[in-house]
């Protein structure tokens, strides 16, 4: 009895917890769960789930409605549920040579650009790795800076250089090297220049990160054992930088395949790429089911490269 009496006042004297304190206690107790769940739910809701809706729309028909497609599931009178799956959009895309050629052309342009980025970016990354302690961070900064400036404006800068009366043609005319302007803007060449220019940092940075970790003594060992520099490069350096090459190549290849701005501004309708077709199908033609089907086929083409990229990213984030 005395025990209970002694306890009572202490409970009453204890300050009541505010809403905030109770909330904080809850947060602390479910700490792990909250940290995982909040971003995961966000990504599922706004990144994963939308793909299923796109897939659903790709199986619908164009309709005069808002949004402009037929519903997949309809409740008819009498409680009958009908499910309509229309594969016409896929048949249309795959049979129409325009779409097929555009997919092929997009892949051709993105693969070629990736190779050019690799051939130019590899020596640049290697040169930075081999620079002195003062030059290295400055050079790295010089590579990263364009990556931070507006993508759109960097593409625009090339419009000024490549135009018929642009800087390059003006210079060549004044030097007397050409008599009339060379057509560069609104050609495939311009699209290549634009892609290589804007995606190059994405190639250089993973390569740099990979090369930076290389053990220089391996090269020395190879040289001591009588290996020529070219031989050392192909048998030691190149295989060791493979993870960087793959990560950089995929970072260029995957987004470049679906590129919209560069073919639109620098290709000007003369270069067909699938990202541009998709955008126009959606915005000008308002044919959402076909646009959705175009997106699904593009995703299907890119899903394997994306999985490979995820595999390498996962490995990179695991080992320090």
């Amino acid at each position: 009895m005395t025990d209970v009496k002694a306890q009572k006042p202490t409970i009453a004297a204890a300050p009541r917890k505010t809403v905030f304190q109770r909330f904080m206690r809850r947060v602390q107790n479910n700490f792990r769960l909250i940290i995982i769940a909040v971003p995961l739910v966000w990504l599922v809701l706004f990144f994963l789930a939308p793909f299923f809706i796109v897939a659903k729309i790709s199986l619908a028909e164009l309709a005069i409605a808002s949004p402009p497609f037929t519903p997949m599931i309809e409740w008819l009178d009498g409680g009958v549920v009908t499910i309509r799956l229309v594969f016409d959009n896929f048949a249309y895309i795959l049979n129409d040579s325009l779409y097929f050629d555009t997919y092929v052309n997009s892949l051709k342009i993105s693969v070629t650009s990736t190779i050019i980025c690799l051939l130019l970016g590899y020596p640049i990354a290697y040169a930075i790795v081999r620079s002195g302690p003062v030059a290295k961070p400055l050079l790295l900064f010089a590579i990263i800076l364009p990556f931070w400036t507006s993508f759109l404006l960097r593409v625009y800068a090339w419009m000024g250089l490549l135009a018929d009366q642009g800087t390059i043609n003006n210079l060549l005319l004044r030097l007397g090297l050409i008599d009339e302007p060379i057509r560069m803007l609104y050609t495939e060449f311009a699209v290549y220049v634009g892609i290589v220019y804007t995606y190059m940092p994405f190639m250089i940075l993973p390569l740099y990160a990979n090369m930076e970790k290389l053990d220089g003594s391996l090269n020395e060992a190879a040289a001591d054992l009588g290996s020529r520099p070219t031989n050392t490069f192909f048998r030691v350096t190149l295989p060791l930088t493979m993870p960087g090459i793959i990560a950089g190549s995929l970072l260029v290849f995957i987004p470049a395949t679906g590129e919209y701005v560069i073919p639109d501004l620098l290709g000007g309708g003369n270069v067909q790429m699938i990202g541009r077709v998709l955008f126009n199908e959606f915005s000008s033609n308002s044919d959402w089911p076909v646009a959705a089907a175009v997106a699904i086929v593009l995703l299907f083409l890119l899903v394997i490269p994306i999985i490979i990229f995820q595999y390498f990213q996962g490995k990179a984030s695991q080992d320090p």
Partner: protein
Amino acid sequence: MYSRRSRFLTIMLILGLAFFYIPMIMLVIYSFNDSKLVPVWGGWSVRWYQVLFESEEVWSAVALSLKIAFINATCATILGTMAGLAMVRFGRFRGRTLFGGLLVAPLVMPEVITGLSLLVMFIALNQLFGWPGERGFTTITIAHITFSLAYVAVTIQARLTGMGETLEEAAADLGAKPFKVLTAITLPRLTPALVSGWLLAFTLSLDDLVIASFVTGPGANTLPILIFSRIRTGLRPDINALATIIILAVAICISIAAILMFRQQRADMLDQQMAAREDT
């Protein structure tokens, strides 16, 4: 540095830097061109800057873009940091593979696909719940957070892996609760990554054209949407002026951030050296 750069590497480096910077330098020079035709030089002038400053359309686009970028950067940094912590510090948990995949995919997903899928998601949500209503500010911000948080998570993951777990383990051994460890040890040490993640999310948002074009509604023009609609028809001197201002602003901000982080790194290194010296 284990050997000198060969001449070939030096030449490639110089050519590469020229390739990166000449287009932007030309863009800046031609913004001071008096002529109405961008490529025809008509003498030095700042008239296109005046045209720009008088344009209300430009100002409202700048205001909208900055507002979206600010909210996006803040939310994406919070969500991205949570994601980074979960991936690096929480060991195995159910759904980790899915989580990892969802964190990496936005980095490479073509923008047209992300944009289209977010748009149909917003329409579906609106039909079901009457939210988010008219497309514009809210939808663009949500779309930007979705891809920005992936970039922040990568930055945070790299820093978390790099700094190791010893201090956190020590704090936990001394009886600190996980939440306390996070606020007292992990977050303060993550500061450089938090800053660069925030800046990255901010610029990604300011830069985005394609995804914003898909999810925007009538009247909500961000700066890239405005710029794109003007340059689609060709070169515009006032856009050169706008580009110059943007490039200079970015260059200044990033330089300051880089210098601050470089100093921080050097201070960290000195601290570690001192600690190592005291140990011996």
